[in-house]
């Protein structure tokens, strides 16, 4: 059975558009669009609103391979990706025309763009979904996922998340991120109502919806919980809220304690989860019962998953049926799908005597800024290319800041910040810049990122 069929089996599932308060049964989105029956690629610039959910469901129910992409990508990045992958259809409500594409009115509500040349290059039948590893840098590197990956992930999550038939769940995490996608798939399989929204926790309308529809759950990366604390969320009562989920990094200890002390007496549950796009979602979770004693742990593996720690590098390795089938960086890569047995997470981990895992560092040069993963080498290259190939070194500082080190005395901090803001939508306040006379190097001539990081203290 396909994920789509399992979702359609949840016959009482309802989607609500909070902007109009209109609701749609899951059957209303069954083949509700006129699309060609073929194996090809569709780009969905998904904003979590009702339209993108309808489009996503229709293509899940087709032979198409779906790529979920950020609607906030700059137009240049969108065109570059479309050039590389030649999608047959595009859903992007933000554009009125795309060169090389015709408008296809797929229904009275939904407009698609259809490639004039009807590309039909071969795509491996096991590839159902392509997700970007970065989300916002416009990198053409996609993670190839199968139906089986998606179903295994969703079913493993349903083993521990208390999702019920009468649940009302907001899509307040973008579905283009694997965590948001997991919220969508698990609730589509088992919950009663999904609120299709892109409103965020700093919008009054989000809280109006929260009370009006009585959200059963909330999800977020650490940054979202920091905002919740800032707006005094944990000082108020929400009798309808049953559980919260968190992923995308470790909560600071103080906040973890605030949350633990909030949920415990109220009988609510807080789930810490650990995952990656390459695992089609989750790899581990911390049971709410362990929150008090193990609040810095990612918990234990999900059902059918297992961890090993590489004895020499201490890298956390994951095995399970949700491990992806390889990366794609060009359309020719869509012709293969190699189910992986071991996923190298790039995280350095420890396991305590009771079998709980802890992330203590990273092997890969990855930083998570506001919950979004950025490859530091990639950022470095983007900056170098923009600034005449000059020397830059990028370092992540505790998933809070991006430290940029450079040699050019004439280069103003503002220029770099402005560039990163425009290109990668990084807020200047999370960027720290240090001009130095010499970039620290290791004996073999590579940038010594460990020494470079200490420059952060001087910014």
């Amino acid at each position, binding site marked *: 059975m396909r994920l789509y069929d399992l979702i359609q089996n949840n016959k009482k599932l309802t989607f609500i558009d909070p902007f109009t308060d209109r609701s749609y049964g899951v059957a209303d989105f069954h083949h509700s669009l006129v699309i060609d029956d073929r194996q090809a690629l569709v780009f969905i610039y998904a904003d979590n609103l009702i339209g993108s959910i309808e489009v996503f469901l229709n293509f899940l129910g087709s032979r198409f391979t779906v790529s979920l992409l950020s609607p906030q990508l700059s137009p240049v990045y969108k065109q570059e990706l479309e050039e590389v992958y030649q999608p047959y259809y595009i859903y992007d409500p933000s554009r009125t025309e795309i060169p090389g594409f015709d408008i296809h009115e797929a229904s009275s509500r939904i407009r698609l763009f259809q490639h004039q040349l009807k590309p039909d290059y071969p795509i491996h039948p096991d590839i159902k979904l392509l997700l970007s590893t970065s989300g916002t840098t416009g990198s053409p590197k996609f993670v190839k996922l199968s139906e089986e990956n998606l179903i295994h992930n969703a079913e493993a999550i349903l083993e521990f998340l208390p999702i019920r038939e009468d649940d009302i769940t907001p899509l307040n995490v973008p579905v283009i991120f694997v965590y948001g996608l997991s919220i969508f798939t698990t609730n589509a399989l088992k919950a009663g109502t999904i609120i299709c929204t892109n409103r965020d*926790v700093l*919008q*009054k309308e989000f809280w109006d919806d929260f009370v009006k529809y009585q959200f059963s759950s909330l999800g977020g990366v650490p940054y979202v919980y920091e905002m919740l604390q*800032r*707006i005094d969320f944990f000082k108020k009562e929400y009798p309808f809220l049953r559980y919260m989920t968190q992923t995308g990094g470790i909560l600071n200890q103080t906040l973890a304690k605030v949350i633990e002390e909030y949920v415990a007496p109220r009988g609510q549950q807080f789930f810490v989860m650990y995952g990656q796009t390459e695992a089609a979602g989750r790899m581990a979770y911390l049971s709410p019962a362990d929150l008090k004693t193990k609040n810095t742990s990612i918990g234990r593996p999900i059902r059918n998953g297992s961890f090993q720690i590489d004895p020499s590098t201490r890298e956390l390795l994951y095995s399970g049926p949700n491990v992806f089938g390889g990366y794609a960086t060009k359309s020719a890569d869509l012709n293969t799908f190699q189910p992986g047995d071991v996923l190298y997470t790039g995280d350095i981990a420890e396991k305590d005597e009771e079998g709980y895992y802890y992330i203590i560092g990273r092997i890969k040069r990855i930083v998570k800024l506001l919950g979004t993963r950025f490859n530091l080498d990639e950022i470095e290259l983007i900056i170098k290319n923009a600034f005449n190939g000059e020397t830059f070194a990028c370092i992540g500082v505790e998933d809070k800041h991006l430290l940029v080190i450079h040699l050019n005395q004439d280069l103003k901090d503002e220029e770099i*910040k402005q560039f990163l803001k425009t290109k990668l939508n990084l*807020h200047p*306040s999370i960027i720290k810049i240090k001009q130095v006379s010499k970039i620290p190097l290791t004996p073999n001539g590579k940038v010594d990122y460990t020494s470079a990081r200490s420059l952060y203290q001087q910014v």
Partner: protein
Amino acid sequence: MDKSQKLDEVMALALSVPLEEINDDLAYQSIPEWDSMSHMVLMTELETAFGISIETDDMLEMNTMPKVREILQKYGVMQTN
């Protein structure tokens, strides 16, 4: 410094947009620059610049330029026009 001019400067700094782009049409999430991150920066900057402590309900209400000004009036830091 004129309070209104000071407000514009705080907005420009927090949202990281040029001062010329600060106008009454700006609203939360209406431009990419005014997102959740910069909104929290904005709240902190307003508190520092005007020496006030903004209540949480007001943080969510301050979602347009006119609303920001209106609520700052409530805190007694902006003159009524």
